[in-house]
């Protein structure tokens, strides 16, 4: 069902967790299958310098989340806004057709974080 790269990202997801000093937080959920993703960005000079995620979802959702975090690191916000869900799936070497919509989670959560950042929201108050 899943190719090796997907399984590898699922088994060893990169950048898991929260960023206590995140500059932006995004979230996205699929009402249909109940999957949700939370993404935390550290941004410096309009560039993503660190990223973390938490995901409730299937193997495809977790692998897509992990892959996305790898893809955005070092990108400017404009570049990051251009990443599509399809890009994530492609970078994973493809997903089963039935599972494609599960990968729609990640890019959308990223864009949500960037939008929140641009609206001046989403910065975590350091306690």
């Amino acid at each position, binding site marked *: 069902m*899943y190719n090796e790269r997907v*399984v590898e990202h*699922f*088994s060893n997801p990169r950048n898991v967790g929260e960023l206590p000093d995140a500059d932006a937080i995004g979230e996205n959920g699929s009402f249909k*299958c*109940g999957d949700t*993703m939370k993404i935390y960005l550290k941004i410096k000079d309009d560039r993503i310098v660190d990223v973390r995620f938490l*995901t409730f979802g*299937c*193997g495809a959702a977790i692998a897509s989340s992990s892959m996305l975090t790898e893809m955005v690191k070092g990108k400017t916000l404009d570049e990051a806004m251009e990443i599509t869900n399809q890009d994530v799936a492609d970078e994973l070497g493809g997903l089963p057709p039935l599972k494609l919509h599960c990968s729609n989670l990640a890019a959308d959560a990223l864009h949500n974080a960037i939008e929140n950042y641009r609206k001046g929201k989403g910065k975590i108050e350091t306690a």
Partner: protein
Amino acid sequence: MSKRNIYMDHSATTPVREEVVEAMLPFYRELYGNPSSVHALGRTVRRAVEEAREKTALALGAEPTEIYFTAGGTESNNITLRGAAKKRGKPGHIITSSIEHHAVLDVCSELAAEGHRVTFLPVDHYGRVNVNQLQAAITPDTFMFSIMAANNEIGTLQPLAEIGEVAREHQILFHTDAVQLVGQLPIDLKSLNVDFLSLSAHKFNGPKGIGALYMRKGAKVTPLYCGGGQERKLRPGTENVPGIVGLSLALELAVAEIEEKRKRLEALRTKMIKGLLAISETILNGHPEERLPNNVNVSFKHIEGEAILLGLDLEGIAASSGSACSSGSLDPSHVLSAIGLDHPTAHGSIRFSLGRGNTKEDVDYLLQVVPRVVDKLRRISPTYHA
């Protein structure tokens, strides 16, 4: 503990026992005749089919003329419900439960769309139908109950004897989808007031693509297919002779060993449930006692079933999340919703179903692996806080 391969998905399907494979082989090779042929080879094969029918009947407490071979549980269910509706000819009322397999549930929905009325009885949080509610739902045009013997996801058993009494009292036909029960727990159709019973061979170490329908003498349905006169016209088409032979032997063997197997699997099941419930925020789905001896269904909160399956799979453990047949779908299982689970909890449910081959070592390995897999996924979860 080194990696093992453990199959705990016996409710999805089972391996065919070697004795059964061996019994089927001659019917592919030398005994290949068509049972409808009048020559010697045909007659030999006809005899084998009728002996298989006798064996099947005996194992269920039925008469040979009450057994019809079909292509599986799905077909048996469809023939019964659609066939009874077709026979009735005019709209009527059917009572079923809200946790039936799709091969009953969806037929009922279609019959409703065609003008019948269907009551989908709710179940309690263990998945049990309430017989008083059933009785209260009866109307003068109620012609059929279809209540499954044991649920395929959560293993909950239904009170067949009581339901049968209600059916008899009101002269309503009673169908039970016993696909998951047959081969796991004894069944005696002489002492149950069941008019139709569906079973499928691949659930009890028989081959895939063959099933049977028990139809009590005197009960009648209009056949759905036309063709030759096979299976007394109820299911025309050249008989799947190796399948029929395989089904009957698998059933005979399963019934002969049923008590021993039940005891063994119940012990493993009890151990598994205890071990799995030791994981925090884990709940058991289904009834604690009134359940199939081979069924364990738990929900691990905060994580999603398919991801758990994948994690288990990578550790060599084969299990299922909801019904194997519906796992292509992404909607939460209708069974878990019916027993009151919220969507995330339903999504985090896993069914482990035991079978002949499973051992204590399998359970030990499982109880070592599952907490690790669950923990790893929970660390990724946005809702979990250890």
